[in-house]
């Protein structure tokens, strides 16, 4: 009798019950569900009609691209290479593709926990970036020399983004540690430096790196313009990321630091083995956020004359020939950004789940 009384209520199951529970449980649920169903249907129908059913795909049908027709994807066939490669010489674009793949592989591999060690990550990055630069620049073994002024498109965007993160992340760790140093001179001056960098617009910093630095610094120290811009961008990134890491460091308990010290562990081990893993873990959502912002901010380098993917996209519609197809080009660009940013946020979600299970 008692067992019977305690048995769980037998809820109806199956798709019909699920639908009723989630969409039609009250009259206003039902009303909202119906209204949104209609809206979603209309939007999807319009989009699919525009993007697929009525779309014009091939360049030879360009004359059909009118205001009433669907998407004119012919522009991508015709100008896709310009968007992806910028001003990079047409014959050599296979090199840009390979270079791009090498950096994407490097990023993907460094996302895997098995590469997270002080020895493996730097080797991986140096190898990945060296491959990129050698392929892009050429000038050896019969490869035509292509200077960085001609690099462009997607591979430039990815190169700038990953360069900024790879240089900026260790800098951020350094800034964060310096800012909580027990020596007041160091703590105060790094705090001041971070505040200065954060109060300057990114554009100002990049202009200074591209235009002002060559006036002040001797030739042999200047490097090329792209390098200076990436470093300036990295410092900007590091100033923000340092505060995120500092928040993470503060969230680890004081007791652990004392325990490590009392156990006789050296300072570097306290930082690398104990504090930083927890700091990154605790601030993962903000860190991914910062990476997403950075990937999108890379488009700002257009202004100092670099043809990253956004600028190449604008160039593709800049001529009269494809001037009406700007929507298609922007949708294509949005798709490219979406692939990277969505990948990044899924990776963040995967890491969070993994860490909640106690690993990493």
């Amino acid at each position: 009798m008692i067992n019977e009384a305690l048995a769980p209520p037998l809820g109806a199951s199956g798709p019909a019950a699920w639908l009723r529970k989630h969409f039609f449980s009250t009259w206003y649920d039902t009303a909202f569900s119906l209204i949104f169903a209609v809206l979603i249907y209309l939007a999807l129908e319009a989009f699919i009609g525009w993007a697929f059913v009525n779309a014009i795909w091939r360049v030879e049908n360009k004359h059909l691209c009118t205001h009433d027709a669907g998407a004119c994807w012919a522009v991508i066939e015709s100008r896709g290479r310009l968007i992806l490669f910028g001003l990079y010489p047409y014959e050599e674009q296979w090199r840009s593709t390979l270079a791009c793949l090498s950096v994407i592989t490097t990023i993907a591999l460094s996302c895997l926990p098995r590469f997270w060690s002080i020895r493996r990550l730097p080797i991986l990055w140096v190898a990945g970036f060296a491959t990129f630069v050698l392929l892009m620049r050429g000038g050896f073994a019969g490869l035509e020399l292509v200077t960085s002024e001609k690099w462009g498109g997607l591979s430039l965007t990815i190169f700038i983004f990953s360069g900024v993160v790879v240089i900026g992340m260790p800098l951020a760790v350094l800034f964060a540690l310096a800012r909580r140093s027990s020596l007041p001179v160091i703590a105060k001056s790094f705090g001041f430096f971070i505040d200065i960098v954060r109060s300057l617009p990114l554009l100002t910093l990049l202009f200074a790196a591209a235009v002002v630095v060559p006036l002040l610094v001797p030739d042999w120290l200047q490097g090329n313009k792209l390098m200076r811009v990436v470093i300036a961008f990295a410092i900007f990134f590091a100033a923000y990321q340092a505060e995120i890491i500092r928040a993470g460091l503060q969230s680890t308990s004081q007791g652990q630091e004392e325990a490590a010290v009392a156990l006789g562990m050296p300072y570097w081990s306290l930082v690398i083995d104990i504090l930083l893993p927890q700091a990154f873990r605790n601030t993962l959502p903000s860190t991914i956020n910062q990476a997403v912002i950075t990937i999108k901010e890379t488009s700002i380098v257009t202004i100092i004359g670099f043809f990253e993917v956004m600028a190449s996209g604008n160039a593709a519609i800049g001529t009269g020939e494809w001037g009406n197809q700007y929507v298609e080009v922007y949708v294509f660009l949005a798709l490219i950004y979406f692939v990277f940013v969505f990948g990044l946020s899924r990776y963040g979600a995967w890491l969070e789940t993994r860490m909640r299970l106690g690993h990493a």
Partner: protein
Amino acid sequence: MHDAAISIRGLEKYYGDFHALKNIDLEVAEKQTLVICGPSGSGKSTLIRCMNGLESYRSGTLNVLGLPVGDDTKVIDQVRKQVGMVFQSFSLFPHLTILENCVLPQIRALGRDRTAATDEAMDQLRKMHVGGQAEKYPDQLSGGQQQRVALARALALKPKIMLFDEPTSALDPEMISEVLDVMKDLARADMTIVCVTHEMGFARAVADRVILMAQGEIVEEGTPEQMFSNPKHQISRDFMAVVNG
């Protein structure tokens, strides 16, 4: 040096204007168990934290195993490698497994290789009756288990002295005895122990000496019997009345 493991003379400590330790003289012989008790704010924790350089002091001398614990960080490092410490709040590393908590300090502080460190860690964990928890993470263990892991972690470094800073104060009542039991075993195995605690049962069972502190001073010092049956000072009598219920 003779057989004094810890030797303190005229120790003075200030927090700003607050006089935290006043003219402390104290000797702890090798293989002795010393219990420090006293009301909160009396300076017991400050004193024990001075012994491995977690706190600095203004004047006086403090020798541990013949080494002067002072400003020289190299000497303090040497002392810390021979002095283990267990804290009130366990202070395990939450992102590492129980085993790794015990292995990593051996590798980093002593430069042991991983295989030797793992053997040693498992050995100590088994002695603390937590060998079966090696692959778990700290937050999956009870407070009593975590504190025994903290003890195993410290013992894996083969210290000559163990410091305990209120090791059972953060524990639920039913877990206190499981931690005190392993501490008693340690005391009987001739480890040199300095323990800040209010657990008078522990003091009675294994302490060679008890000191009572109040307002930064050592008020009274003696064997457990003297302290419990016949305290001389009014402060000691009041305190004993409270902790003995």
